[in-house]
């Protein structure tokens, strides 16, 4: 008993107040900013109604950071910045300084230490991504490695603002899509039904829950070799992998048949049109670790086409809205296959109910 009482009880403190972590100029002018501009790629300059100004220098990171890297970023903040940083939703670090004279030395130091400065405005910013083989329990591919290979290729686009509008990227290691919506996303697409290890199902899986998890009712309870197990109607199965997380013996991941698909045109912002979901435009790309050249070829091709063809302020979705899907496939050279025609619920809203045709 005495020992039990000595155990520390959790303090359910919740989300901490951010006041003490904020740069003093931000705290002073909170809710009272007037406008901003971007003196160069990677730098935001904000002006408050009080006349105060701050410069935020944004740099890319690998997101999965070792403590040495984080301490190096802290050293830079203390020696070249003002000791305060923040992170963006896309894992970029921002150094906030109230003294303009610190901006150039800070940029030089970050670049010198291998952290690219950029990711602002109409650049290609860092990939929002998942855990992959490094940590996830259900991944079809890696995340950090795919991201590293993509960002190596897009390095100059991160450091410059030469795109028509901002480009958000994401990657996801299974069809659950934890990486989220983006202008361009890379997502695992399984192509074969799960292989079931019938010896394990009864002990590992809550069978009714697995049956209920299937979006197309393709899973049934069954006795296999005298043991309670599950069976999959392979004609119905859409190979989504939804049964795998609640029942790991339903092995969906396959080194050969788990492919990668490319999606485009997700837009989180309400600016101009309403937010949009992304659409699948390519699939069947091999899960070719460690550098995924086939995926990167398609990613590069779509982004180059968008860069050359879209008008200023057109996000990927706005651009395709203007030129139409036939020309998207024509200009990118991507094959338009029958698998890209939606047949899920509500799908007829995605078909052309008009004679609007661009010739």
């Amino acid at each position: 008993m005495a020992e039990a009482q000595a155990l520390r009880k959790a303090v359910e403190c919740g989300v901490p107040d951010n006041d003490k972590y904020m740069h003093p100029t931000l705290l002073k002018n909170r809710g009272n900013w007037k406008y901003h501009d971007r003196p160069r790629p990677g730098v935001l300059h904000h002006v408050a109604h009080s006349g105060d100004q701050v410069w935020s220098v944004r740099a890319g990171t690998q997101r999965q950071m070792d403590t040495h890297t984080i301490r190096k970023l802290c050293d830079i903040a203390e020696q070249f910045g003002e000791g305060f940083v923040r992170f963006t939703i896309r894992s970029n670090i921002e150094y906030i300084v109230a003294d303009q004279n610190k901006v150039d030395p800070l940029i030089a130091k970050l670049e010198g230490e291998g952290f690219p400065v950029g990711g602002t405005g109409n650049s290609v910013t860092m990939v929002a991504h998942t855990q992959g083989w490094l940590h996830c329990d259900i991944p079809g591919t890696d995340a950090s490695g795919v991201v590293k290979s993509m960002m190596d290729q897009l390095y100059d686009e991160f450091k410059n603002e030469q795109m028509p509008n901002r480009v958000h990227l994401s990657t996801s290691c299974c069809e659950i899509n934890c990486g989220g919506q983006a202008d361009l996303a890379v997502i695992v697409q399984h192509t074969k039904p799960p292989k079931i290890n019938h010896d394990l199902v009864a002990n590992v899986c809550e069978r009714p829950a697995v049956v209920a998890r299937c979006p197309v009712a393709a899973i049934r309870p069954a006795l296999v070799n005298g043991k309670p197990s599950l069976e999959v109607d392979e004609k119905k199965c859409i190979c989504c992998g939804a049964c795998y997380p609640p029942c790991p013996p339903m092995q969906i991941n396959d080194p050969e048949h788990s492919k990668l698909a490319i999606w485009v045109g997700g837009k989180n912002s309400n600016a101009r049109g309403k937010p949009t979901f992304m659409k699948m435009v390519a699939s069947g790309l091999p899960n070719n670790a460690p550098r995924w050249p086939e995926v990167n070829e398609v990613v590069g091709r779509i982004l180059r086409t968008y860069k050359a063809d879209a008008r200023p302020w057109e996000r990927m979705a706005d651009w395709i809205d203007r030129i139409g899907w036939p020309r998207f496939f024509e200009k990118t050279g991507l094959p338009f296959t029958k698998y890209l025609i939606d047949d899920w619920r509500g799908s007829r809203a995605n078909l052309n109910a008009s004679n609007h045709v661009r010739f």
Partner: protein
Amino acid sequence: MAKPMHPTPNLDQLETGPWPSFVTGLKRLAKEKDYVVDVLGHLEHSYQTRKGYWKGGTVGVRGYGGGVIPRFTEIKDADGQAVFKDATEFHTLRVMPPPGMHYDTATLRQLCDIWDKYGSGLIALHGQSGDIMMQGCTTENVQKAWDEINEMGFDLGGAGPAVRTSMSCVGAARCEQSCYDEAKAHKAVINSFLDDIHRPALPYKFKFKFSGCGNDCMNAIQRSDMAVIGTWRDNIRTDDELGKKWFAKHGMNELINDVVSRCPTKALQIKDAGSVRKDGHISAVALDGKQCLEIDNKDCVRCMHCINVMTGALAPGEDKGASILVGGKSHLKIGGLMGTLVVPFMKLDTEEDREKLVEMAQSIIDFFAENALEHERTGEMIERIGLVNFLEGIGLDVDPHMINTPRTNPYVRTDGWDEEVAKIEARKKAAA
């Protein structure tokens, strides 16, 4: 000095190229830790065989039912022994960050010290739900690490069928487009649901996200069960000096092509200075001595585009607040769903305003807890029962802002029509 490295020919290839390499970071940790030597071996094995080898399990901290993501190795030899003996467990602690993800360096260093002591030394800033992800810990060390993190004033986030860690944009801290205090709203809401975060007992996950304007930098409409998106009711504010500065730099072609013609509701027109309408819902910004950009704020949907292009010359109004959307989620199970607007506008200036937001969140979560099926998200539940049943359940009146178009089919029983009209009339009278 740690034990020798396993050969990692695949991972080695991720050390080339200009982008910062997570492999290089892991290798540096591996110089000091046998644990990370084996984590690298484990990951290289995945690269060679193209499969993942971590399985879940049950690991937690005292008093909480979530917040730790357990991982046990599945790479075993013929005798069932772990091949990578120093990395048989690789658990993650999900830690909720400060709103806006602001840090001073002392705090980051302290987190690093704790993680060098108890964990792998690998920290992801941040996970897709916004957590500080302290990645790689043994079962034995989870509680020890947590105790020290908790002493710093940080708390664990959500996992499983629970309220999840939330995110809010930089917002009022640095952005002129912010329409409410995102950090205060974030903190007020999330800290009201700590029990639902720490002890997962909902049908499925529930996510809040807070964006200060329609640019929705937190992807709240696409990704959260309850999205709080800043907006304003009065006119767009204008600054003639900054308007003239913008026009002198960008000219008429850009004004027409990039601003006027991209307004989704055609609320913008170019006018001679003398002919700008005088109505109360018109704003105008000077372009030069002769011409103005006129905005009809009754037509404007607060999409943010013109303000994004002409920052400072145009700005959100002063009567600010937020819209609430409910039911956004990603693919599983019925496909991606956007949130649906259920509150066009509410003020979020005071503690009382935020208390109303918390009350609404509470009624939505209560309804969700009672009515959703197992593993069903809020948006899927609304799709199954219909928006009207959901609104009645949480006590919100219907409003034409909630729809794109009225019904396009006759398949509805309407014998309560007169009573509904009478209710609407009574409400109008009461409000007058």
